[in-house]
């Protein structure tokens, strides 16, 4: 198990290097450059050219990539913070430390000042949504799959299909129409600003509801399908024909087997909730991670994109590791080597 985790960690590092290089290379194809973005559209071309030279942007791709990696690892000072450039870019942590993602040209602030608060906001949203989605879909999915074809099963399945097929922007607008416009119980936007007159918790209700509606339907159907399949297995029949009551059959014989397949899918929802909820964040003007990635990509803020990519990747690989380990714990036929 330990060797397995160590090997996974090694492959995580490798993936991070490869992905960050790819992102670096791909942004090459976008128009404009760091010097122009730093100075803004009104700077004179010769000023831009001087900065371009000073930052070494005409160096080959590989050289610039190593320079960026050096800054990240704290081996090199961030060139943008060089006082000689007169840019007034300052990072209170200094210009040379481990984990220095550089300076965001979009927000005109160190990436570390921008990104963590955004990630924290999204993590709050995702955490609450996940904490509701998982128990809700497990309970509904098991109840539905336990007696395939029953009235309860059909009701839950229809709910699942309907709620997944309504896109987030639509359900967001519906909910806003009901709870904000008609009832006036909740705020229509969620900037997480206590000064907006609404307590923070009330700002979270609608975004969480949209996410739960959209995602739970999908997970419910996964769990239901797996449960229904397990209930038709030979060993469940064995359990019934031993004379065990329904409750014991479900709890002892069916449940654990039914969890094996959806487990991975459930953990994949974490990735979706962290970096895939752009639409919800846009609808509610939520200061989240997904929206930040979108803005940074549109602007071409390479330092921010790189940082966001690395963080999202780390989360994705970590959840995958957890899901592999959990899979092995659920299924004794799998051993991790």
């Amino acid at each position, binding site marked *: 198990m330990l060797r397995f985790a160590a090997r996974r960690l090694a492959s995580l590092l490798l993936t991070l290097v490869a992905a960050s290089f790819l992102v670096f290379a791909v942004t090459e194809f976008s128009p404009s450059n760091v010097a122009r973005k730093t100075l803004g559209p009104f700077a004179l071309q010769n000023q831009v050219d001087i900065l371009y030279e000073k930052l070494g942007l005409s160096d080959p791709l590989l050289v610039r990539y190593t320079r960026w990696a050096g800054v990240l690892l704290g081996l090199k000072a961030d060139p943008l913070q060089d006082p000689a450039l007169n840019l007034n870019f300052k990072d209170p942590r200094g210009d040379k430390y481990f984990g220095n993602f550089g300076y965001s040209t979009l927000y005109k602030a160190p990436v570390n000042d921008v990104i963590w608060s955004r990630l924290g906001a999204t993590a709050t949203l995702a955490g609450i949504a996940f904490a509701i989605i998982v128990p809700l879909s497990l309970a509904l999915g098991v109840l539905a799959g336990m007696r395939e074809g029953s009235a309860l099963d059909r009701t839950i399945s229809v709910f699942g299909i309907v709620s997944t097929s309504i896109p987030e922007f639509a359900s967001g607008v519906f909910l806003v129409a009901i709870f904000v416009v008609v009832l006036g119980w909740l705020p229509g936007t969620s900037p997480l600003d206590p000064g907006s007159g609404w307590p923070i918790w009330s700002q979270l209700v609608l975004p969480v509801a949209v996410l739960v509606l959209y995602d739970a339907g999908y997970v419910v159907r996964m769990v239901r399908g797996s449960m229904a399949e397990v209930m038709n297995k030979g060993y469940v029949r064995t359990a019934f024909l*031993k004379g065990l009551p329904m409750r014991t059959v479900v709890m002892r014989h069916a449940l654990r087997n039914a969890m094996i397949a959806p487990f991975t899918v459930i953990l994949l929802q974490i990735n979706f909730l962290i970096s895939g909820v752009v639409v919800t964040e846009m609808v509610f003007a939520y200061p989240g991670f997904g929206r930040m990635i979108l803005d940074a990509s549109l602007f071409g803020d390479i330092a921010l994109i790189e940082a966001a990519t690395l963080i999202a990747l780390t989360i994705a690989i970590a959840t995958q590791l957890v899901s592999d380990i959990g899979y092995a714990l659920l299924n004794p036929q799998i051993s991790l080597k």
Partner: protein
Amino acid sequence: MAGDALLTLDRVRVDYHSALGVVTALPDLSLTIRRGESYGIVGESGCGKSTLLMAILGYLGATGRVSRGRIDFDGIDVGTASREALARIRGRGISIVYQDPNAALNPTLTIGRQLVEVPMLHEGLDEAAARQKARRILSDVHLPDPDAVMARYPHQLSGGQKQRVVIAMALLANPKLLLLDEPTTGLDVTVEAAVLDLVNELREKYGTTLLYISHNLGVIAKVCDRVGVMYLGELVEEAPVRELFAHPRHPYTRRLLACVPRLDTDKHETSFLPIPGQPPALAARPPGCPFGPRCAGFEERCAAGPVPAEAAGDGHAVRCLRWREVDGFDAGANEAVRPAPVQPETVLEARDLSKVYALGNAFFGMGATRQLVANEDLTFDASKGEILAIVGESGSGKSTFARVLAGLQDASGGKLMVLGQDLSRLPAQRRTLEQLAAVQMVFQNPDATLNPSHTAGFSIGRALRKFGIAKSSRDVETQVHELFDMVRLSPELAHQKPGRLSGGQKQRVAIARAFAGDPALLVADEPVSALDVSVQAAIVNLLLQIQARKASTIVFISHDLALVRHLADRVVVMYLGRVMEMGPVKSIFAPPYHPYTEALLAAVPVPDPSVRQKHLRLQGEPPSPIDVPKGCRFAGRCPRRIGPECDATPPPLRDAGGGHFIECHIPIEDLRNAAPVLGPEG
């Protein structure tokens, strides 16, 4: 034998309700099982055997219903029993052993947890006492080291061990009636024999009543006192076991017996008598006698109404209006098969052929020190018009040989000549069209061979085009028509997708496809083992007829010794990748035997209770083909092991004369003195 009834079914009717309407699985079944007896029900797939078992257990699912009659178990009506009473019956009254032990055990719970819950629930024992009891039963079913078994998960046990666990689980409740649903189907023949021994032994020890369901007449002959023959949900004949096998009265029973391969005759002496047509769907049940449309003695009165049971002897009941005349109309050997003569020309030649898999470490990809020897030093040949059978249990390397021959895998050493060309290291994609056409395969599972999204005719047409036999569409159509004719399928079926064909029809299509390129060599890997015995008989007859006409060579891979006895000219017996014995078919089935062949023969369930069979059982399970023993492969399980040389030195190849070779340390003269495995009673 105690005379009072334990289980009585009185005119029971079971229906399945679905959106398409009501289908009757059991129309009107009456059956009595007495305390202490072992009752067998034999029938082919779809005859309602499993429905009967589930009806007895009150577990017909959401769609099944007992719509008439009474199922009375030990004084309780199962059909009207409350949920609690039913749970009590299932736990303490009736338990069941399933066909597939892999599916019957929960993969995520240890064996121990699955066993102890039975006595904890039904006897109210605490966990320690329940474990104690489970341990005792596990040693009763001869599983060594019960504590270790209880700590394991099902996937850590072999198939035979799992079936012993399932039997132990069934016995834990001290049932009065034990239902066995094809408990040995899918197990190797030596494991099957050991499980059947166990069932007989436990029955004597606990006095449990048995209801044994099987399609295998040999198995029924071995373990049952009374037998009922089921066809389309009706019990067409019922008799004490010896009476039934000696004097079958119902035309269906007789045909069924005539379809079973036997160890004492071959294709030159007898032909199978397959049943014409196919069993009708349950929804299209014919009026009157269900077997009428397929019966040689059908008369109008047979379809007039339900056929009553008549007594045809002591305890012998038969549902046939013409059972007294059955000898008259059912005697004709209308399907005489003329086997092909073997010609001197050699078609297939294997010389020291080996296939070794290196088992490496997946991560580092090096340091592959362990080897899996799938085939080693295979040396034999086959002539034109000859059927060479390769027999052995699972893991013996039969299928690996077939894969190398078909070019699906490369050999690691030696030569494999087909028509003088070495194909041992020539994968299928590098073979010429002639070489591809020369070697064709028929596989075990007809469902998996045919592409479900193309019609049956398309698959054959593609082979015809590919081999350049037919060019224009019209050519293809005529040829497909001819091939369908050859395998006796109606040409309309060429336009059907495989999903609409029965298993036998699919296998006929697969045979037609294989013969499309007029192969010199046909490799048939267990081609009939997934089919019912009457379908198997028809396919075997067909294969023999086509082979006789085309003088093709067939490599017939099978685990069924009786079938091999019927159709093969020469036999190769394999164990753990090596040839143990080979020779003409008659010499393999008579002394001198290789000790392994002898044990295999002693394990075959013989469909004749009057035959005396030598009792010889192999210990344990075949060892893993990884890191095989240095000396004789079979030494570890050999009942005739003579000393340390068996383990240390590879045995010599001994010539028993007439092309019969045995690889064994025991001299031929000693092997010749062994008594025949099968003999008349006495």
